[in-house]
């Protein structure tokens, strides 16, 4: 009988996950998004009625579904990294494929949401809120597409050969996907929750 043991977070050595260069990219990206978040909140505070009325026209259920999808995909990536640390690459590959599938589902729901807006005559130039809405979700969507590509690359890398996976690259790719999730967590709150 195989007994699996897992060390606790406290017992492992302290280190920054992934490649240091990736964190410079994430920090820069996070700073830009923070400026956009604060800018959105500031403009919203000076035109609260317009923003409130515009937010009523969003499909909040699609926003909720996409949030749950991304959170789940992040958990799948966590499971993948855990599997790789225990040299179970085949299992990790399945978790990564599931996570990438979640990313595709996110894009599909976002396409439906955008379609609803365009069919309803709502475009990025409809008003200030929708300029922010399309800009913020559009930039995030680009990150999702890049993230899916990274997940697929990670999956292909660990199934291609028998050598041990480069854990720094795997952790870096995983952190990028979690970062994509973090951006959406804030966007979900600003756009769909605080109205």
């Amino acid at each position, binding site marked *: 009988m195989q007994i699996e043991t897992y060390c*606790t*977070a406290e017992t492992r050595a302290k280190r920054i996950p992934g490649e240091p260069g990736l964190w410079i990219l994430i920090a820069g990206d996070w700073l830009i998004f923070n400026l956009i*978040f604060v800018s959105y909140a500031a403009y919203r505070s000076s035109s609260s009625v317009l923003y*409130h009325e515009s937010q009523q026209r969003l499909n909040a259920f699609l926003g909720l579904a996409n949030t749950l999808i991304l959170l789940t995909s992040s958990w799948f990536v966590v499971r993948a990294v855990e599997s790789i640390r225990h040299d179970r690459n085949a299992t990790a590959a399945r978790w990564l494929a599931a996570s990438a599938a979640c990313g595709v589902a996110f894009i599909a729901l976002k396409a439906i949401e955008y379609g609803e807006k365009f069919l309803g005559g709502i475009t990025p130039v409809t008003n200030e809120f929708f300029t922010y809405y399309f800009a913020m979700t559009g930039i995030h969507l680009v990150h999702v597409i890049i993230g899916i590509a990274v997940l697929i690359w990670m999956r292909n890398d660990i199934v291609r050969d028998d050598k041990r996976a480069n854990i720094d690259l795997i952790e870096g790719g995983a952190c990028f996907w*979690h970062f994509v999730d973090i951006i959406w967590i804030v966007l979900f709150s600003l756009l769909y929750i*605080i109205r």
Partner: protein
Amino acid sequence: MTVRSRNTIIWLALMGATIGSFAISHDVGWHLGSRALAITAIAITIAKVRYVGLDFMDLRRAPTAFRVLFEVWIVTLGLLLSAIYCFPL
């Protein structure tokens, strides 16, 4: 508690917090002027970001300075957003 079970609990908690904040927002109505509710939503958001960072990204075992930088940054963002919603321009 193993890392795996802890992360699963955190994932479930994140899902619960998301559904909970959505339910409150759409049943009670986080309407205009409801600053306390907006601040609550921001607090939940920052908490979710914190757990994704610390546990999913594994920053909980990063060097202390790196972890502190992350936590200070997200708390600052939360305070800034809360201030803007509390004191409109």
